[in-house]
């Protein structure tokens, strides 16, 4: 498998880094892949732009940085606009449709939206929107098995919040399954036409 390069963008406090951490952990600890997480460090304070990058590979990751991501997880409008041009042409955009409205003429091929922030709010904790996104991303890309993701979530979130986070993950995962199902029950809320990803995650 060639490497999957994932960029997660949002603003500080959304759990962008944790999201990247769980993806990497699911792949490299609870699955048999290698995953390198890097994050853009800067003087950013809570609320400003931030991003995490994960490179997932069957073999050892040699070059740790993401250059041309084939998966972009956009959890904020700013993050989307900053990074959308870097996404590879056959790449996958996964976005929080409560916050991001993708361009009609965006360069990527596949786009999947989920109202993660709204779902999280409905579940009672806005802070878990990143885990809803993670579940959604997991189901859409099938990068690592669902159980590996769940184990990674369970072992990464604060003590006492595991149940809520796993519920958030499962909710996101189910929405993701629906989004990639050959026959969709409902039209995606995004104005953008959504195509079936196929094996794009492996690209």
């Amino acid at each position, binding site marked *: 498998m060639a490497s999957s390069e994932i960029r997660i963008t949002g603003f500080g406090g959304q759990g962008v880094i944790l999201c990247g*951490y769980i993806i*990497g*952990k699911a792949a*490299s*600890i609870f699955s048999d892949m*290698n*995953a*390198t*997480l*890097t*994050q853009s*460090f*800067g003087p950013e304070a809570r609320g400003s732009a931030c991003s995490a990058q994960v490179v997932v590979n069957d073999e050892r*990751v*040699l*070059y*740790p*940085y993401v250059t041309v991501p084939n998966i972009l997880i956009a959890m904020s409008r700013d993050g989307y606009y900053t990074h959308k041009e870097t996404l590879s042409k056959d790449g996958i955009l996964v976005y929080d449709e409560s916050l991001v409205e993708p361009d009609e003429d965006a360069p990527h091929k596949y786009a999947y939206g989920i109202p993660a922030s709204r779902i999280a709010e409905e579940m009672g904790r806005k802070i878990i929107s990143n885990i809803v996104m993670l579940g959604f991303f997991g189901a859409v890309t099938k990068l690592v098995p669902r159980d590996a993701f769940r184990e990674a979530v369970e072992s990464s979130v604060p003590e006492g919040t595991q149940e809520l986070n796993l519920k958030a993950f499962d909710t996101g995962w189910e929405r993701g399954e629906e989004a990639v199902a050959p026959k969709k029950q409902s039209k995606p809320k995004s104005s953008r036409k959504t195509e079936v990803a196929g094996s794009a995650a492996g690209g």
Partner: protein
Amino acid sequence: MQADPKNVLTGSHYLDGNHACAEGALAAGCKFFAGYPLTPSTEIAERVARRFPMLGGIFVQMEDELASITAILGASWGGKKTMTCTSGPGFSLMMENFGLGIMTETPFVLVNVQRGGPSTGLPTLPGQADIMQARWGSHGDYEVIALAPDSPQECFEFTIDAFNLSEKYRMPVLLMTDECVGHMTERVVIPEADQIELVERRYTKKKPGEGWPFEHNGSDIPPMLPIGEGYRFHVTGLTHDYRGYPVIDAEAQKWKVEHLMDKVRKHADEIIRYEQEGVEDAEVVVMAYGISSRVVRRAIDQARAEGIKVGLVKLITIWPFAEKLVAELSAKVKSLVMVELNMGQLYYEMERCARGRCKTTLVGHTGGAVHKPEVIYAAIKEAAQ
């Protein structure tokens, strides 16, 4: 001796290089850590501070880097395995008492998570430009031991190795990592405690009143004296004799400085560590260390795929420099290429040891990022011509 299971976080973890380094220190039996916050090294101190209380260790955040390194020197003579961490600006401040550690033959580990310099430079981005400072940063003549990890896994392993080398050779040892490795999160496999071999401090077998703190013959490593046991010994940064008493003359200086050099030089073969890949039939050998030794592999794979006979030497110890290896390689290859995140530091060591027997090329970088594989590939291609 094996590590104490209490100190070892056995299992597979998803850790960044800094956290892995902290776990390496704990596994090695580090019990005293004094530090001062400095990006991008701070996570090492943070993790040690969190983990120490239940392991019987003590962490102090000092007023500056001068105090941090000096406190660990004092604690080392107090019988503890000790460590501190910093980056460029703090590394500069620490050089004063790094020298005291060298002169007084005091074991401890100093971690430099390198960032871009000079001065405040690039606090959050990588560099490898403190390599010569590691070698010559404190005044006077001496030898150093410095290791360069390329991953969180190596951060864990090399930190333990650094502690072992510092006890074995009774001197401070440097771990020269960088921002990229320090902040990169990957799987780190921490073995069972009984799989981790540790070198414990060697104390004199002589009775109080008979043992002296700097008694050695030639390149032998003098055993230390335990504090508080009646030896009533003296330690000074002044040039001293075997008793530790100051002696200010050329003869004493020769005795002391030659010892400081010899204890590394005469054991260079035991200390120097490197990995070689595809060197046997190589026409071009790329040398690199730390994060650079990792990114070069992509370029090497590409060059090999195109039929260029290229090998890799990944230096694990950057000091002492692998002089003999470079001399041997230079006699049989067409070209040696050094890839490092600076504008030529270890390159000149390589060039010196090649003595004009082959072409030498520097693939330098001013820091702030890692090399692009295509740049390295182009250099390999040119070196092969």
